[in-house]
């Protein structure tokens, strides 16, 4: 049905294009150079009028149809079904009705339920046909309207170009809308969370046990939402990653910029790019399968008690992941230092190492620092490696051989599986997400500002 509708829109738009173009050709034949626009623009003008409004209408319709029908259905339900049902249970009731309508039932549904299911199925069919008819009507009306406007002096090109400009502006606003969407959705859910759990407990509490009781009177079922251990764990793992990646990345960059020849560089650079292109889930598997057991073995040989999902394994592998990131940003920063400074230092008799240490690194420092901040933000936001290799239980410790948990791990474990949006356990994930977003955003903004300022310095 839907595929048919989209095909109809495309076919009718194409037809409109040919009709409009032939009208344009007629104007050119009759009026010659007095015609304002080329024939193709007449065609495009009619095609836009036929296709775009219908497409927008169908997309909006599809977005809203589900929830409109749900609400109408809930409003029309007999009181026998809805009386005394908590709002949270309504969605359960809805999915029960839908399952009944599709035929997935356990046991015989009650008559009210099957009646509601019939209503639901009937309304959906009606809505589908209504959409089809309305879309067709819109296409025909708009096409007719556009066609009647065509004449040899009609500014079809200007109109088409105006539409294109509007479309382009709309597209560049999508980036803003995305950011706003992120902020609004995170803030809205977080506010709801903070109405259940006081912010002071979340930001300063030392106990993170987000399990909520299933029964009201269950013992020890209230859940604790002190996020400090989670933040601490994130910090531990990100620090390990930075400790691993910073020296390797910076020394690699120094060698590639100052010492290596072109040929070595042309080999090493793509290899680093491969390292950067490996999906994080692969690194996660590597951490679980190879690195964590190796660290455990080494730990027990040396007589340390090592957790099977130690922070060292997750952090170390995350470090490998951000090596290419740091090295390429440090590489850019070192290259941006003008050749004259390098030549000056070498001409004074300094060795390469002294030039690097006393001239290049100080000059490139802002760029490198910006790169390190970006890398840190990436380490904090990295998910798959820690989900697979780090622990789940939040504890206040900074021992790298012990298991710690991170913000991203908690978000994933809280939200995996079916989620209801009315308990603090689910909403806590959004509060953590908000913290993560704000922290990484700050790091990114600072880093990008530093890098840009520094670039201007030498341009």
């Amino acid at each position, binding site marked *: 049905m839907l595929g048919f509708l989209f095909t109809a829109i495309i076919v009718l738009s194409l037809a409109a294009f040919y009709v409009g173009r032939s009208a344009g050709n007629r104007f050119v034949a009759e009026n010659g150079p007095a015609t304002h626009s080329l024939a193709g623009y007449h065609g495009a003008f009619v095609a836009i009028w036929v296709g775009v409004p219908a497409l927008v209408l169908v997309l909006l319709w599809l977005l809203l149809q589900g929830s409109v029908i749900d609400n109408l259905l809930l409003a029309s339900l007999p009181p026998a079904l809805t009386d005394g049902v908590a709002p949270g249970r309504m969605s359960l009731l809805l999915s029960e009705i839908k399952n009944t309508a599709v035929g997935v039932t356990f046991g015989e549904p009650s008559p009210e339920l099957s009646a509601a299911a019939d209503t639901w199925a009937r309304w959906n069919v009606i809505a589908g046909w209504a959409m089809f008819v309305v879309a067709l009507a819109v296409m025909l009306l708009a096409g007719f309207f556009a066609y009647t406007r065509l004449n040899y002096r009609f500014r079809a090109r200007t109109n088409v170009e105006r539409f294109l400009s509007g479309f382009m502006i709309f597209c560049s606003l999508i980036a803003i809308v995305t950011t706003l969407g992120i902020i609004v959705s*995170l803030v809205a859910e977080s506010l709801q969370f903070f109405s259940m759990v006081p912010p002071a407990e979340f930001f300063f509490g030392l106990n993170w046990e987000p399990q909520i009781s299933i029964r009201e009177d269950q013992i020890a079922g209230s859940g604790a939402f002190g996020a400090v251990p989670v933040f601490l764990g994130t910090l531990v793992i990100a620090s390990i990653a930075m400790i691993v990646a910073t020296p390797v990345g910076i020394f690699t960059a120094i060698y590639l910029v100052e010492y290596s020849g072109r040929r070595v560089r042309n080999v090493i650079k793509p*290899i680093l790019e491969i390292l950067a292109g490996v999906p994080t*889930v692969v690194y996660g598997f590597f951490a679980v399968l190879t690195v964590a057991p190796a660290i455990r073995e080494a730990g027990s040989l040396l007589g340390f008690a090592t957790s099977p999902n130690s922070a060292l394994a997750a952090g170390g592998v995350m470090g490998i992941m951000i090596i290419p990131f740091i090295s390429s940003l440090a590489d850019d920063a070192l290259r941006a230092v003008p050749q004259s400074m390098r030549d000056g230092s070498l001409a004074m008799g300094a060795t390469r190492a*002294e030039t690097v240490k006393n001239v290049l690194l100080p000059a490139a420092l802002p760029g490198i620092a910006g790169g390190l901040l970006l890398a840190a933000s990436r380490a*904090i936001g990295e998910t798959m490696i820690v989900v697979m290799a780090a622990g789940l239980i939040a504890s206040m410790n900074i021992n790298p051989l012990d298991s710690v948990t991170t913000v991203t791990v908690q978000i994933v474990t809280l939200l995996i599986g079916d989620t209801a949006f009315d308990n603090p356990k689910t909403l806590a994930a959004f509060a953590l997400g908000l913290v993560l977003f704000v922290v*990484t955003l700050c790091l990114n903004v600072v880093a*990008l500002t530093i890098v840009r300022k520094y670039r201007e310095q030498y341009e």
Partner: protein
Amino acid sequence: MTDTSAVSVSDRPADVAARLRKKRYAADRRLRAYGIGAITVAVGLLGILIATLVLGGYQAFTQTHVRVTFPISTQNVDADDLRGSNWRAVVTEGVENLFPGQSEEVRGLGARILTNNTQFFVRDAVIANPSLVGETLVLEVPASDPYDQLNKGVLDRDLPENRRRLTDEQIAAYDIVEEQGLVSRPFNWALFFNADSRFPEIAGLSGAIVGSFYALMICFVISFPVGIAAAIYLEEFAPRNRYTDIIEVNINNLAAVPSIVFGLLGLAVFLQIFGLPRSAPLVGGMVLSLMTLPTIIIVTRNALKSVPPSIREAALGMGASKHQVIMHHVLPLALPGILTGTIIGLAQALGETAPLLLIGMNSFITSPPGGVMEASTALPTQIFIWADSPERGFVARTSAAILVLLGFLITMNAIAIFLRQRLERTW
């Protein structure tokens, strides 16, 4: 009459200076050695990573099969009701054929050699060819996971019995089958053509590949036109003012937002507010397109920038409008660069896992999706599911799945590099 003291700049004796120089040169060599060391570490780690995956995964590309002769007797199979027939009994008779003249006990053990789904294989084969009723059916049936490992040598026969997953009797039963020459190990096409399963021997990637394909198509359909349009506006039309600055900073920041935050956005907006179905490739593709959009905008802007101004000026000079200049001249010339960047952006999207977990694309689904609205997994989430599975056979499958994913990524990047070299013009 020369004054030698004026010539000597340094007061240091020659031997001290030489020692100092030596030290400075040593420091230089040290820095160089650190650099080489760092590169060796990075390249070595990549080597270890790939070696582990290849060593762990290559065996999953073959699968042990056992040739079994099933008598399709009319006693067990009703030609009018093939689905409801007693296929379990047919399998039992097939197993009897594997162990001619052996005791009941050995046959009981031997039944486990075949995968649990054997009866469905037999059923499907007979349904596809109903004339087999009353005849015999010879079928290559996948061996179940422990025996597969035994045949591949992963399961060590020399280990003491209590540390093995198979007892001595079970191995003996397997050896009876092997001595008859019924065991083979062909290429594991099931890895590509089967969907997910709880039994590693018949689990495959087809559902994940199809799901990833749908999600990438959605991602491409949304982010490619939108990204190009946004980039053209920002690069060619936008006035330089505070608003366009905000948009620009925004896009750069969006490129650095952690991927899991996009997952939260998808969960809260696409699933919760718009009510789109969970686990659907449509939602996955929409979330991925939001993440790919900044990449495409940035590469498109760079590609547009690299088209020389003389082209624009010539077209403007011929009387073209600004839109015509861009649509007819600048954009076609920039297209190779845009395509290259888009493919690389899509390759990144293909490997993205975290946002897909949050919108539920990590469910256990045993058939490939029939459309973008049906529940499905994607390649990286399938890897995540398998990596979490306890069966030994899934370890090899996970590595193999990773190799398949890396294969796709390498192919996409190779296409991008090929396009860049063949089509891109330097001015």
